[in-house]
């Protein structure tokens, strides 16, 4: 591969030497200013349809030699609307209007840019000005509610946790995550980026836009472009905020005395003796474990950048530091970012070279929450919530300061266990990216991009010895370390063509790229360090058969080779047509199905430009459509090979032989999965119809899109008969699904010439999916288990939405034995023979006289019917205000955390449980045996998780310009605000918006780390 790179470098060289000097003509000088006459440094002046151009200096002045007669100058600057000027004299003064994100705004699309007015696809452009005001270190979290059709769930409140981002809902049972493209480099993940470095974010939603990323675009594409240098003189920006984080701990727990009573009642109701520790209220401690486990956290972020531009060089160097102490003990995360973006102009600006170097250090003291589908268990948070208040937390006499529980209370001290553990990950991300853009002749230009993304990960975990009972015992200090590296190398050739022939505008692009990913790593671990003072694996010893030192490692990779092209045509800026094609070859598939081809077509019509259209209050009206295909290749490598499993992989194949209790363990190896030779791409075909509009001279603008997609041959783990001897589910192209929905966005801007200015943007989107094929007749996928591998809460089946809740229906509580006796079938048998008054009545929905699985009903799912965001910005004199609300409507959540806290007698709800004298309650009677199975999966625990959240509230004050100038500042703004201040919801769990990454268990609340409310103070400074 690199041979070819070298040869292409040769090509570049040859192309340079082939350049000739242009004919000389007029010599122009001038100045570019804003509407008020303030000079704009770094503005670009280009001669239309040529490669000629220059940029203004610090005083906003320029000098452009050799301008041909009748030339048209295109003058543009970041933040201003570009303008075309026909030179009328040799010295020009050109005033630019401030950009209100009009139709001339340039959007970064895949492998190129496009004027917003020319776009025929469904692309959402995120207003980064609104992002700047969000106090968050995570670009994904910040996207919440900012673009219609981009649905972000908070994941968890863990500072290093990642949000779940879905574009247009769920369109695959496989991986539905979007592809991130950062400065032209496709990545699976972009959360290491400093939000302060982000210039623009565009979201490619339909096939027309995303096809150009072919096999990885099924989940949509998020294109992130980082900031470049802007003005002539070096310009420094500094910003900082500090916030205090308050964990939203809204699940009250009983103290010891209340719990004792509840437990005693629960056992007494079963005629059983309650555990000894609840018998005497005067015994034992009354500890607040949650209080000791959580803390008020702080979040801080500091950013400084220096940027500038001269005629030949543009640069921006930035440094950012973010840290979040977390809201639980012994946790926290820190990130440092350095980025240098530059642009070097050579050969009369004909050649632009754009090197980018970015480095990120991420330092995380982790708290790992449960994740994914299947038997995922409950969050470790819940383990703290359930810990008996009877246990003491601290003990001065214990060697480590933490108390060993009284033996009858059982093992474990979650505070001690966490504090005596020390683990961190320290990860380095390095992105080196050089793009070269060469203007050729006849409208051709050539672009070459080479990029390397290197991620080096390191983590360690060390535990000091402790004894919190036999089941929470670490005899010797243990240590593990892991080092890994991921190297992503990529190069892209692009050949662009752009031509205007009268009213015909033609643009075309052809490209080729290769991408190589290599993952390598090693890990080591042992359970006996010779001393707790040693913090290196070298201190591990083997002192008998209970000790171990283990090593592991990995070494794999995958390659992608792609050909792609795009052609767009418009006539007179009225009629637009665009087509794209991409052919991807992936090493993840066998030779027969290695390549996938994806295409799209789209069109648009600027109705408002027609002569016959004469509606003065409509400024823009542009209907458009698109149809096309995208793919999904997001699967493990070598699924097409029949792999032999060895030793320590899952499943564990080892087995001991010999005649001692500590027998020698022998290594086993065998086939434990089946190959799928026929595995191929998953493909999504999408139709999109939309309209862009702008009314009343642009004060009101927006767009509406309707989409319908069909994903075919979805790759998913397919259950196979276990009688084959294989329990691992092979990936097959098992299923098809449909997804449809709409998106609407509307912005109103008050007139700019008033002292009080405001704007408001609303985003709304809706999507719903339906499985139309699932492998085999009557096939279903059950998941969302809330009791180890039992009590599945969701079902995925043909004709229904992905992961629909599938539960028993309840009908209140039995108030008397007579009600229980009256609830019988035709044969006279009781439908709930084990029920007692106060137990839940479950509905025999099919009326067959028995309560069984067939009575479960589908009851909605964890995806919102409506996702919305509302951003309000206002300014009056030097004050500015931002209010950002976001919400979700119509999503359901299975409150597993509630079930958990009921089971372990911790929820205060239980103090109001049904008794013969307390019948006006919906809390079922206390019973330790639960003979009626009140905890079975039912709508008792299913709740409406719709919510409206005041996500961000911020009030800012900008120092008057005069005052700032006397302080030698260009700008100073201070602000205060609150993040996640208020949430309006009926949901009774921690938070209605926490979600895990499991596709089949979305909406199942396992008691995830809750979000924090934060109060923020910050400043922005420029000089």
């Amino acid at each position, binding site marked *: 591969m690199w041979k070819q790179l070298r040869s292409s470098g040769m090509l570049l060289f040859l192309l340079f030497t082939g350049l000739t000097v242009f004919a000389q003509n007029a010599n122009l000088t001038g100045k570019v200013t804003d509407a008020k006459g303030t000079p704009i440094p770094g503005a670009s002046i280009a001669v239309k349809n040529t490669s000629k151009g220059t940029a203004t200096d610090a005083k906003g002045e320029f000098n452009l030699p050799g301008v041909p007669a009748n030339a048209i100058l295109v003058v543009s600057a970041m933040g201003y609307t570009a303008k075309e000027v026909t030179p009328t004299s040799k010295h020009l003064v050109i005033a630019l209007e401030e950009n209100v994100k009009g139709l001339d705004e340039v959007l970064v699309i895949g492998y190129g840019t496009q004027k917003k007015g020319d776009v025929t696809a469904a692309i959402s452009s995120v207003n980064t000005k609104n992002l700047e005001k969000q106090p968050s270190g995570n670009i994904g979290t910040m996207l919440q509610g900012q673009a219609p059709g981009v649905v972000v769930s908070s994941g968890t409140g863990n500072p290093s946790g990642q949000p779940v981002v879905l574009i247009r809902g769920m369109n695959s049972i496989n991986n539905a995550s979007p592809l991130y493209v950062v400065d032209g480099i496709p990545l699976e993940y972009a959360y290491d980026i400093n939000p302060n470095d982000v210039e623009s974010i565009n979201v490619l939603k339909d096939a027309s836009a995303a096809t150009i990323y072919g096999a990885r675009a099924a989940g949509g594409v998020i294109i992130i472009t980082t900031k470049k240098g802007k003005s002539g003189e070096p310009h420094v920006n500094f910003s900082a905020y500090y916030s205090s984080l308050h964990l939203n701990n809204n699940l009250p727990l009983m103290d010891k005395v209340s719990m004792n009573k509840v437990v005693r009642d629960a056992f007494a109701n079963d005629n059983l003796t309650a555990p000894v520790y609840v018998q005497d209220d005067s015994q034992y401690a009354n500890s607040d474990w949650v209080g000791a486990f959580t803390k008020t956290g702080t979040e801080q972020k500091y950013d400084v950048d220096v940027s500038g531009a001269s005629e030949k060089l543009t640069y921006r160097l930035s440094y950012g530091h973010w840290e979040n102490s977390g809201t639980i003990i012994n946790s926290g995360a820190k990130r440092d970012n350095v980025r240098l973006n530059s642009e070097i102009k050579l050969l009369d600006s004909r050649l632009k070279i754009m090197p980018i170097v970015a480095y990120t250090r991420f330092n995380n003291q982790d708290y790992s929450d449960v994740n994914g589908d299947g038997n995922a268990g409950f969050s470790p948070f819940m383990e703290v919530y359930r810990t008996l208040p009877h246990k003491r937390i601290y003990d001065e006499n214990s060697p480590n300061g933490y108390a060993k529980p009284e033996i009858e209370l059982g093992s474990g001290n979650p505070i001690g266990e966490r504090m005596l553990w020390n683990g961190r990950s320290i990860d380095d991300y390095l992105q080196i990216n050089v793009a070269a853009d060469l203007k050729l002749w006849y409208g051709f230009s050539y672009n070459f991009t080479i990029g390397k993304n290197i991620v080096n990960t390191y983590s360690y975990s060390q535990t000091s010895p402790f004894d919190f009972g036999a089941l929470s015992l670490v005899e010797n200090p243990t240590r593990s370390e892991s080092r890994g590296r991921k190297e992503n190398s990529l190069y892209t050739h692009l050949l662009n063509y752009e031509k205007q022939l009268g009213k015909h505008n033609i643009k075309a692009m052809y*490209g080729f790229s290769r991408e190589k990913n290599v993952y390598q790593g090693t890990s080591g671990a042992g359970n006996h360090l010779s001393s707790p003072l040693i913090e290196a694996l070298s201190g591990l010893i083997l002192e008998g058969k209970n000790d171990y030192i283990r090593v592991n490692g990995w070494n794999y990779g995958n390659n992608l080779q792609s050909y792609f092209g795009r052609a767009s045509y418009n006539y007179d800026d009225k009629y637009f047509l665009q087509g794209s094609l991409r052919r991807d070859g992936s090493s993840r598939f066998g030779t027969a199905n290695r390549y996938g081809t994806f295409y799209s077509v789209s069109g648009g019509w600027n109705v408002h430009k027609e002569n016959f259209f004469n509606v003065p209050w409509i400024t823009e009206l542009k209907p458009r459509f698109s149809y096309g295909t995208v793919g999904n290749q997001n699967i493990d490598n070598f699924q097409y090979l029949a792999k032999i499993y060895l030793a320590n992989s899952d499943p564990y194949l080892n087995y001991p032989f010999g005649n001692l209790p500590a027998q020698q363990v022998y290594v086993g190896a065998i086939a434990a999965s089946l190959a799928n030779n026929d595995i191929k791409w998953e493909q999504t075909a999408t139709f999109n119809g939309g309209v862009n509009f702008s009314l009343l001279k642009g004060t009101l603008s927006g767009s509406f899109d309707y989409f319908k997609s069909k994903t075919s041959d979805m790759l998913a783990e397919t*259950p196979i008969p276990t009688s084959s001897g294989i329990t691992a589910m092979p990936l097959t192209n098992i299923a098809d699904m449909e997804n449809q929905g709409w998106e609407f966005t509307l912005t109103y801007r008050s007139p700019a010439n008033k002292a009080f200015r405001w704007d408001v943007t609303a985003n709304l989107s809706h999507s719903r999916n339906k499985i139309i094929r699932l492998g085999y007749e009557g096939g279903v996928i059950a998941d969302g288990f809330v009791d180890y591998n039992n009590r599945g809460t969701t079902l995925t089946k043909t004709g229904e939405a992905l992961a629909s809740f599938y539960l028993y229906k309840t009908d209140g509580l039995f108030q008397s034995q007579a009600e229980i006796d009256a609830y019988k079938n035709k044969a006279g048998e009781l439908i709930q023979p084990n029920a007692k008054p106060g137990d839940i009545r479950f509905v025999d929905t099919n009326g067959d006289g028995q309560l069984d699985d067939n009575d479960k009903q589908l009851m909605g799912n964890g995806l919102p019917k409506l996702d919305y965001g509302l951003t309000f910005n206002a300014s009056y004199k030097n004050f500015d205000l931002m209010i950002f609300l976001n919400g979700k409507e119509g999503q359901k959540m299975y409150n597993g955390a509630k079930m958990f806290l009921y089971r372990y007698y911790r929820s205060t709800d239980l103090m109001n449980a049904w008794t013969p004298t307390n019948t006006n309650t919906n809390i079922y009677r206390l019973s330790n045996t639960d003979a009626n199975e009140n905890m079975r999966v039912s709508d008792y625990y299913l709740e409406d998780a719709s919510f409206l959240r005041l996500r961000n509230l911020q009030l800012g004050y900008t120092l008057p310009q005069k005052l700032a100038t006397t302080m030698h500042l260009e700008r100073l703004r201070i602000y205060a605000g609150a993040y996640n201040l208020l949430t309006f919801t009926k949901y009774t769990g921690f938070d209605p918006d926490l979600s895990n990454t499991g596709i089949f268990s979305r909406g199942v609340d396992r008691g995830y780390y809750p979000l924090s409310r934060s109060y923020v103070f910050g400043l922005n400074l420029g000089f």
Partner: protein
Amino acid sequence: MMKLKITGLFFTAVMLFSGCSDKFLDLQDKQNLTESTFWATRQHALQGITATYGALQGYDGDKWTFFEQVYVTLAFKGDDIDNNKNEPYGKNLAAFVNSADESGPWSLWATCYTGIGRANQVIQKVPGITVMTEQERKEIVGEAKFLRAYNYFVLVNGFEHVPLVLEFVKDLDKLQVPQAPVADVWAQIEKDLTEAEAVLPESYASEYKGRATKGAAKALLAKTYLYQEKWAQAEAKFRELHGKYALNANYVDNFNGTKENGPESIFEIQWSGDRTVSDERHPFNFEGRPYALDGWEVFYPSDWVVAELKKDKTDAGEYSDRVYGNIFFDDPKSTMWDLNVPASQIPYSSVASDLSRPAYYNKYAYPNDRSGSYVGYNISLIRYADVLLMLAEAANENGKTDEAIGFVNEVRTRSHAKALAVGSMTKDQLREQIRHHERPVELAMEFGIRWFDLVRWGRGNTAKQAIKTVLQNHGKPFSSNYVEDKHIRYPIPLKEINTNPLLKQNNLY
């Protein structure tokens, strides 16, 4: 000229773009062997059979699958176990309200078929490995047949109607197999065991102890006859083992690791405290023990089995060794090991006030040599005491009641229980004594014993006993929920039916 040059360069560029070869996409799997590179050496054959044994520990080899799923499913329906109602483990199974999506039966099903699938691979592939002796090849194939037979034995008794898969099929489109006639499954078990018996060695070198022996094949074959009420064949086959093994002098040595693969052992699931290679320990030592001794109290001895145990007395009228070896109860001599380091034996009286139940199982509740949490002690599948009791049962059915009493007494006297007087019992009395005293008292809570005993007596033709009646007589909680022709079998797991529409659900599920 210049234009020509540039045009030429463009074409070069375009050629360059499209002239890339697909070799770039050919990657090697550097982490794994594949089917085509495996099964080539003697080591591969040993690794293959090791993995086949490995499936005895659960389909994924995970200790939790083994206990929470496999053991619980096999044990919790029995009348010798009372589960902790506040724990989810096997709760629905034990209350006879489980539906077909219960995870336990699926795990048991998957565990058996995982063993069968691996055995099938060994049976198909090992004969083709030429770089080892023919005898060793045959022995390894014999072991695989033994393990395949054992897994089918569990399946046919647990589920009854099961697919008979005798080949490892790799084609994803050919994995759906219908259920076989029950007689075919029994016949295959007998065939595999007969073939295994012929080639398996009498014993192994000490480093390989625990692999299936000729004796193990005989014992399982005899048990297979017994379960089919082929009394004569069963008795004959069991007699081939009589005197070939010996009872451990101490009853508890069967459970505390001191006599692993020892004189009484016929076949055991191997576990190990040696963690240098991987962790092969299990949690049996704390699952049943009281909270007050660091246990999880997941299950208890049923009141009935406690009462039955307490009937087991010595000549002097004291409790026999197997009472103390099974339960921790209110008796001056009753103790349980704690999990401290070093461990000590805790008398019942010293923790009585912290206990909420009158008795706990202390079988398998032994400390490890260091850390208390998990242990590496083997878990018996067939031991000689069981063989003697089955021999007694077969002999009694064959009319040799007095001789059968002798076999029973061999087991009783090892624990110093008073010998039954020869001639003191009729055939029916001895049958009842074996069924509802000797076997539960000797083998209480042991892996895969009691529930299957109830199943065979419930479905057989010789002195058939409805399980519901037995459970009700023995005070099993929720036995009123028991439906005779339903709960005698596990449901065919819903997950399995979902993937294999050729399967027919068991009656009434």
